[in-house]
């Protein structure tokens, strides 16, 4: 008896057990009673930092989670690189890319280029206004990355609008992540707490030097502190991370 027969025979059993699993999950979900919990406190204290509560939670209270999340993306980018030969044990393997150039049609050429610039501008707006309006570094970075995708799909890898090499994308990504890490370290050095929002100086009793508060406070009506800078770092990182992934996946050799 080979595995295929066993597989067919056992489908029913597995389906029954998955059914049991689903019944319990659905039962739990439908008998839910939700309490506001910590969200209420965040909504209460958040407005004194920045208007957008979600950004405040992401970059202030749970800024450390966001750091972890950024590093998941970095790990994925490195892993995709390893898969296609960069950093494999025993020396790098160069992949010959076949999708390097492509001849766009006239319609594509006329519409793609301006659209790319509009999308990039939109992404920058989303990033910089992340603490006031719905948006932020992740959203802005991924919007800019879509512009890169568009340009790669229309013009090919080699001759696209951005003409970013793999190396420079990597440097961008490293710089983005280092901005985040170093702002966190600044908080650690000045107040003793990692990722303390130095610019906003929410707890003045910690003895943060005034020059540092002035340096890192964002020139804005609200008192967002380091959040906009973190947004910029995350945007750089997300943008270059997605771009690297798409470059690597599109460059995979078509046998």
């Amino acid at each position, binding site marked *: 008896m080979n595995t295929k027969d066993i597989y067919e025979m056992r489908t029913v059993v597995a389906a029954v057990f998955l059914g049991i699993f689903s019944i319990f999950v659905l039962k739990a979900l439908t008998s839910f009673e939700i309490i506001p919990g910590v*969200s209420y406190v965040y*909504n209460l204290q*958040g407005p004194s930092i920045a*208007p957008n509560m979600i950004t405040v939670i992401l970059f202030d209270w749970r800024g450390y989670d*966001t750091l972890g*999340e950024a590093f998941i993306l970095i790990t*994925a980018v490195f892993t995709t690189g390893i898969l296609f030969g960069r950093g494999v044990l025993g020396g790098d393997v160069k992949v010959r890319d076949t999708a390097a150039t492509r001849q766009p049609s006239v319609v594509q050429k006329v519409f793609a280029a301006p659209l790319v610039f509009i999308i990039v501008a939109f992404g920058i707006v989303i990033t910089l206004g992340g603490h006031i309006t719905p948006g932020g570094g992740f959203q802005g970075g991924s919007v800019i990355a879509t512009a890169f995708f568009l340009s790669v799909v229309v013009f090919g890898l080699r001759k696209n609008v951005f003409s970013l090499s793999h190396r420079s994308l990597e440097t961008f990504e490293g710089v983005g992540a280092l901005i985040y890490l170093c702002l966190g370290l600044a908080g650690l050095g000045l107040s003793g707490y990692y990722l303390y929002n130095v610019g906003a100086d929410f707890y003045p009793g910690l003895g943060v030097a005034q020059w540092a508060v002035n340096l890192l406070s964002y020139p804005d009506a609200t008192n967002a502190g380091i959040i906009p800078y973190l947004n910029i770092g995350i945007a750089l990182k997300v943008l270059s991370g997605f771009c690297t992934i798409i470059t690597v996946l599109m460059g995979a050799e078509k046998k």
Partner: protein
Amino acid sequence: MNVDVQLWSFVVAGLLVIIGLYAIAFMDNLVKKIIGVMLVGDGVNLVLITEGFKPGGIVPIISEKLFSSGAVGDFANDAAYSLPFALVLTNIVIGASTLAVLLGISIKLYQHYRSLSVAHIFQEDDA
């Protein structure tokens, strides 16, 4: 009415998780399995989003008028629960990262086996 919306949203989220598990367990195509993994993640995201939903609540972004009038307590009472949304944002990025790596691996496996059938790819692992 709003309670119904929440209930049905939870049901849909649960169904997404279940469909994803079904795809992982029973579908042979590698890409379908990967889609299954994504569906599980999306289902969990929908659970979190629905947890953030508050009947009759407002968007958790404070307006300038409300802020300057000092009614922050009212805002906190009215606004939707904001913590789950932040968690969802994190999980979306996790999902995207896993997706990228899984697709990369499946490209490599396809180049080697010329097939996306999991039964075919894992054929030689039968004991």
